C-alpha cells in the first residue's frame, strides 16, 4: 500500500517534469537556433556562431519596432491606469444605481474576440483619420487593458478600511486630499500589479495592431509576425532571445518589488473567481 502510493507519487513527478520540459522546449529551441549556423528549421544545427547577434545591429527595423512597442504599451497602460482607477473609485466608493452594469460594460472587452476589436478599431479610426499611427493603437489598447485595472484596483479599493479616510475627513481634509494622501498610497501595489500585467499584455498584442498600424509604426510583435510569414532565418530567433531576456528581466523586477507581499496568488485567484461569478 505504502509502496504503491510512493509509486504513484513518482509517476506524478515524472509527469510534471515532462510537462515542464514541454513548456520549456520551444524557448530552448529558439536559444539554440539563435547561435546555430545554417538553416533555422534544420536540426541539429551545423555549427555554433554568434553572427546572427552581430547581424541584429543592422536590422534597424526591429529596434524601431521595439521603441514603438514601448511607446504604445506605456501610453496605453498609463491611460488605462488613470481612467480605470478613477472609474473604480466611482464604482466602489461612490456606488450609484447601475454601477454593476457600468462595471460589466467596462470589463466586457475581456470577452470580446481581439480580432473583432482590431477590425472595429480599423474601421473607426479610418473614419476618424487617425488609423495607422501609434496614437490610435494607444487608444485601442487602453480599452483592452482597462478590465485588468478595473478588477484589480476595484477589489483593492473594496478591501480598504474606511477608518483612515474617515479620520482624515474628520480632521478636515477634502476629498482630493484624502485621495492623494490616503487612498492612492494604499493602492500602490494593485496599481503596480495591474500596470505590469497590462504592460505585458499590450506588449504582446498582435490582433489589434496588425490591421491598424502603418509600416513605420509597426510594433515588435507585428514586425516579428510579418517577418515570420515571409522569412524564417535565425534573425528572428535572436530577436526572440532578446525579447525573452527582456521578459525575464521584467519578471525579476516585478518579483523583487512584490517580494514583501504575501498572498499574491490568492489575489490572482480572487480576480478570476470574481469575474466568473459575474459572467
Amino acid at each position: 500500500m505504502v509502496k504503491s502510493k510512493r509509486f504513484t507519487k513518482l509517476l506524478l513527478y515524472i509527469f510534471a517534469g515532462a510537462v515542464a520540459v514541454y513548456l520549456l522546449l520551444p524557448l530552448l529551441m529558439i536559444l539554440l537556433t539563435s547561435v546555430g549556423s545554417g538553416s533555422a528549421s534544420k536540426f541539429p544545427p551545423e555549427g555554433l556562431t554568434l553572427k546572427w547577434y552581430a547581424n541584429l545591429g543592422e536590422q534597424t527595423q526591429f529596434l524601431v519596432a521595439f521603441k514603438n512597442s514601448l511607446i504604445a504599451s506605456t501610453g496605453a497602460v498609463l491611460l488605462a491606469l488613470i481612467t480605470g482607477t478613477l472609474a473604480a473609485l466611482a464604482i466602489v466608493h461612490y456606488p450609484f444605481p447601475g454601477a454593476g452594469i457600468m462595471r460589466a460594460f467596462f470589463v466586457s472587452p475581456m470577452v470580446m474576440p481581439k480580432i473583432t476589436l482590431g477590425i472595429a478599431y480599423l474601421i473607426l479610426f479610418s473614419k476618424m483619420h487617425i488609423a495607422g499611427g501609434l496614437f490610435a493603437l494607444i487608444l485601442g489598447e487602453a480599452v483592452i487593458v482597462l478590465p485588468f485595472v478595473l478588477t484589480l484596483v476595484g477589489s483593492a479599493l473594496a478591501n480598504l478600511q474606511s477608518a483612515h479616510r474617515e479620520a482624515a475627513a474628520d480632521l478636515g481634509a477634502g476629498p482630493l486630499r484624502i485621495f492623494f494622501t490616503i487612498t492612492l498610497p494604499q493602492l500602490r501595489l494593485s496599481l503596480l500589479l495591474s500596470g505590469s500585467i497590462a504592460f505585458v499584455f499590450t506588449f504582446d498584442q498582435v490582433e489589434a495592431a496588425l490591421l491598424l498600424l502603418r509600416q513605420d509604426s509597426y510594433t515588435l510583435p507585428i514586425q516579428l509576425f510579418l517577418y515570420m510569414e515571409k522569412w524564417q532565418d535565425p534573425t528572428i530567433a535572436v530577436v526572440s532571445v532578446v525579447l525573452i531576456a527582456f521578459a525575464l528581466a521584467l519578471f525579476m523586477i516585478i518579483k523583487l518589488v512584490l517580494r514583501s507581499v504575501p498572498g499574491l496568488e490568492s489575489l490572482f485567484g480572487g480576480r478570476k473567481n470574481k469575474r466568473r461569478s459575474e459572467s
Partner: protein
Amino acid sequence: MNRVTDRIVNLYSSKNRRWITQLLLLLPALILMGIVYLGGLLIFGRYSFDIYENGKLIRGWEWDAYRAFLSDPYYWKLIGTTFRVAFKVTLWSLLLAYPLAYCIAGLKKPGMKQLLLLLTFLPLLVSAVVRSYGWQLLLSKQGFMNWLFIRLGITDEGFSMIYNETGVVVALVHIFLPFMVFPILNVLSQSDASLKAAAQDLGAGSWRTFLTITLPLSARGIASGVQIVFTLCLTAFTTPQLIGGGRVMTLPVFIYQRTLDTNWPMAAVASIFLLVSSIIVSLLVNKGAEMLMFRRSRKGEQAYG
C-alpha cells in the same frame, strides 16, 4: 460676474456634490469606452448589414451576409474546425494541467515549488509570436521533433506536423496551459487538507480519496480553466495563422482574411458569431460546473456552513 460664480459654487453644493464627483470620476473612462469601444463596435456591427459584391461594398440594410454565413456548408466547416481545435486544446490542456497543478499543490519543499511555478508561468511572459516561432522550429520537417522520432525509430521519413491541425493544437496547448494550471492550482491549494485526512482515516485508499474528495472539490477550478482556455482558443488568431500557415482555417483566421480583402460584412458577421458562441460556451460551462458542484458536495458545503 459674482452671480455666475455663485451659480457655479451652488452647483457644487453638498447636495449635488455626490453625483458631480461620480460623473467627473467616470467621465474619462466613459469617453474612452464610449467612443473607442462602443463606437467601434457599433460601426462594425453596422457593416454586417452591407452587401459585398465583386469586391465592392454597397451600403444597405440587408441580411445577405448573415444568410450566407448560416446557410453555406463552407462556413459550417469553418465553425466545425474552430470548435474542434478549441475542444482538443482544452482537453489536452486539462489532461496536462491537472496532474501538474496537483503536483505543485502537493510539494512541500518551497524551492521545488517555486521552480515548478516559475517553469509553468515563464512561457506566459514570452510573446505568442515568439512561442509560435519556437514551435515552428520544433515541428518543421527537418526540425527537432522529427529528428528525435527518426532517432527513436518511430518513423522513417518524419511526420508532417506543421501547417496542419496537429501543429496548431500542440502549439496552442503550450500557449494556454498556464491559464488552465492557475485556477486548478488555486482551488487545490485552498481546499482543506483535513477532508482528505478524514477520508483516509475512514479507510479510503488514495485513489478513492482522490476521486471522491479532491476531484469534486476542484470542479470549480476545472470549470474556470476550461472556460478560460476554450474561449481563448475560439478567438485565438496568432498561432493558427502562423503554425497553420493559412491551411488551418479557423474563424479568427477567416475574419482576418476577409478584412484584408475588405469583405467587411462577412468579417462582421463571423465576428458576431464568434462572440455569441464564446459567451454561450462560458455560460454553459458555468451552469455545468454549478450543477456538478451542488450534486457532489452539498453535504460538504453544509458542514462548512
